[in-house]
């Protein structure tokens, strides 16, 4: 590695270059340096050989963890250059929502890499072999990320979570609540419910009392019968005494004054009478209406507390809707995680590289004879281990830039004579080739699937489990022009359902459970359709009719019984205030009579005085 130079003997040596220790001139070539170079190169190669696997393992783990938002781990990695290839053993991808579970676990992934593309900093895999792919496997330790990373992840997905919430609300998720099968306690019911009829009766009673008090006071303020009779005395006094013309003229004037005063008093009484008649009429009308008020309360309470036969019309949606919503939510969450990559891919987004960090520089790409995406797996062969059996299949053209590649990603999986099914096939196409116009479709067919202890409904009011059944399933999914169209068609045969025993003595719940446990076959059709931001879910099943037949009559009978009890209780609660109100209105009768008497007396007086009243 190093050289030893002797002091030059003279000026000529300095000019001509170094000389050997023997006095001969040294050449420019230092042959031991070649050995040193080979040794250093070999050391570097050996270090690379031992470090490369670890570096690849760390790179896969950190990139995967960043993408998923939970730990991605690799048991071992083996990178080879000649031929170029990579083998990953024991790949585990944690489910971010359940850190003790792996969303995906792969026993072994082998990749046949194109070395020429690696030189261009591009990962092109001609064939990837995935063995022992499993879903939802248990982890030995938690795969959750430290708080800091989780918080960052949470902040990023806040908007997406809001969109999901809205989407689920539009689908009706959260509204799939079974009606309560428990009989309400009528005493508690009436104690906790505010009865409108009771309020009306009490208000009316108070209004009548206020009106009565008002008229007692008003009658005192108005001219009474004695005051009116005093006018009679005054008029008589003016007419009985004889006198001269002048005196007569004076008496006539006095008579007119008295008449004027009398007329004014009578007008006050008349106005009061009109007001009384109006308020009296209104109060009587309210008293007449009052007996009808309890019926409105009865109807409201019946709707709230009694099980109607209409509530059972779409029982399958109530039973299974919640579970389908959970599946949809899971699918949506995974879609959100993949969305940035899909968006980048559909935009053909490899061209716009971000501004590089200082010191890192940028790679400039030039036109290629055969341009390829920076990431491409031409073909993936996979063996998948599902609870129902092992599948094998292939995926073509997984890549980071479909518009550049010009080919969609296609998959095809098939399993025959599985442990728990006759056959399963899944095919699909994810077409992101046209920028801004993504489309995809998938089809799943499962025949002769033997269900064993599969929960059909986790609703607390009616938890139902499929103990055994033989199911055929066909599912279609398509997404195009921003519209989602998903349909799932299921036929269940040789069915044996079980449901938890009802709490307490409840005839309807018992009948429902009996109806369910008696079912031997049923079908189920579920669909999610609509715009990508506005979709609806529909579920229908032969279960609906079966259950309606089983419990419809009983529900009606139970509902009628409960309705009658509610009506009776409500009427009982409002009867006293109602009766009080009816009695109270009668106390207003004498007020009207008194006013009429006063008017009659005044009217007679005016008639007797020869003057005609204007009223």
């Amino acid at each position, binding site marked *: 590695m190093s050289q030893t*130079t002797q002091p030059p003997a003279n000026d000529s040596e300095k000019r001509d*270059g170094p000389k050997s220790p023997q006095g001969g001139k040294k050449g*420019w070539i230092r042959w031991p*340096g*070649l050995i*040193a170079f080979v040794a*250093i190169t070999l050391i570097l190669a050996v270090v690379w050989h031992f470090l490369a696997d670890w570096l690849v393992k760390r790179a896969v783990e950190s990139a995967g963890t960043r993408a998923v938002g939970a730990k991605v781990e690799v048991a071992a990695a083996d990178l080879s250059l000649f031929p170029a290839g990579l083998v990953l053993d024991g790949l585990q991808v944690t489910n971010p929502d359940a850190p003790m579970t792996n969303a995906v676990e792969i026993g072994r992934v082998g990749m046949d890499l194109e070395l020429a593309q690696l030189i261009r900093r591009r990962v092109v895999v001609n064939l990837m072999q995935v063995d022992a792919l499993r879903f939802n496997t248990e982890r030995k330790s938690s795969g959750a990320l430290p708080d800091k990373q989780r918080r960052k992840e949470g902040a990023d997905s806040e908007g997406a979570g809001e969109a999901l919430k809205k989407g689920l609300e539009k689908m009706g998720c959260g509204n799939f609540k079974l009606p309560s099968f428990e009989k309400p306690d009528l005493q508690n019911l009436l104690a906790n419910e505010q009865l409108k009829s009771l309020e009306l009766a009490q208000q009316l009673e108070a209004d009548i009392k206020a009106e009565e008090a008002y008229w007692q006071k008003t009658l005192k303020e108005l001219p009474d019968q004695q005051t009116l009779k005093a006018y009679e005395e005054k008029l008589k006094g003016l007419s009985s005494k004889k006198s001269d013309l002048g005196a007569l003229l004076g008496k006539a004037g006095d008579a007119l004054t008295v008449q004027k005063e009398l007329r004014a008093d009578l007008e006050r009484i008349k106005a009061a009478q009109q007001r009384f008649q109006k308020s009296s009429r209104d109060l009587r009308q309210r008293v007449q209406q009052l007996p009808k008020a309890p019926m409105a309360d009865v109807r409201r309470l019946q709707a709230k507390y009694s099980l109607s036969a209409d509530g059972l019309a779409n029982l399958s949606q109530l039973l299974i809707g919640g579970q389908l919503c959970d599946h949809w939510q899971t699918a949506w969450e995974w879609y959100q995680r993949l969305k940035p990559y899909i968006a980048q891919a559909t935009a053909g987004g490899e061209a716009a590289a971000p501004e590089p960090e200082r010191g890192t*520089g940028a790679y*400039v790409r030039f036109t290629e004879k055969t341009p390829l995406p920076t990431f491409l797996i031409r073909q993936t062969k996979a063996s998948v281990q599902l609870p129902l059996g092992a599948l094998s299949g292939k995926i073509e053209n997984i890549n980071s830039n479909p518009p550049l590649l010009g080919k969609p990603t296609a998959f095809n999986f098939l399993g025959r004579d599985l442990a728990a099914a006759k056959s399963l096939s899944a095919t699909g196409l994810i077409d992101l080739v046209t920028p801004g116009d993504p489309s995809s479709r998938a089809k799943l067919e499962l025949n002769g699937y033997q269900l064993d202890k599969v929960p059909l409904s986790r609703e607390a009011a009616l938890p139902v489990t499929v103990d055994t059944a033989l199911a055929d399933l066909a599912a279609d999914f398509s997404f195009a022009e921003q519209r989602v169209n998903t349909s799932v068609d299921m036929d269940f045969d040789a069915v044996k359902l079980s449901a938890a025993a009802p709490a307490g003595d409840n005839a309807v719940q018992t009948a429902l459970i009996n109806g369910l446990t008696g079912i031997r076959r049923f079908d189920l059709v579920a669909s999610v359709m609509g715009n990508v931001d506005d979709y609806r879910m529909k579920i229908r099943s032969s279960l609906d009719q079966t259950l309606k037949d089983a419990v419809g009559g009983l529900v009606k009978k139970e509902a009628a019984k409960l309705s009658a009890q509610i009506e009776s209780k409500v009427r009982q609660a409002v009867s006293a205030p109602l009766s009080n109100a009816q009695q109270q209105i009668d106390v207003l009768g004498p007020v009207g009579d008194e006013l009429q008497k006063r008017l009659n007396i005044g009217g007679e007086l005016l008639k007797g005085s020869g003057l005609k009243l204007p009223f």
Partner: protein
Amino acid sequence: MIELVANLLKILNSETEPRQISLGICFAMVAGLTPLWRPHNLLILLLVLVLRVNLSAFILAWGVFSAIAYLIDPLFHSLGLAILNADGLKGLWTTLYNHPWFPLTQFNHSITMGSLAVTAVLFVPLLLLGNFIIRNYREHILAYVQKSRLGQMLKATKIFETYQTLRGWGGGR
């Protein structure tokens, strides 16, 4: 820093051929200014080891140039981008890019291209300048300094002490 200056003096004052020192500095410039993990640096290593260049000068200058590279890599990035995107050179780069093995050089990396271009331009001038300076230093300045009062004073300083120590380690390479 004192050790660095002492090392420099030791190399300059040694009886090593000036061309060996200059060439070592020039190779160090290439290795120091360009990104380390590039195939061309393997070639530089081969040349440094096989050609009779002064290794001490190479190692010392490599450290200095690596520090300089850190300071001016944004300049290399801009220059590299300009060269790689130059219309007149597009054809050449495209041909090289499509070559099965040439992309291994990472010539299309902006800092690599920028720094390589700079070092290629400076290599020969630096070699000649180095030779010139070392020869003149030895012929005129060294003898004068050693005889001058300043030289005598320097001999009493810590730098000279360090220099002597290093010389005692078997300098002269």
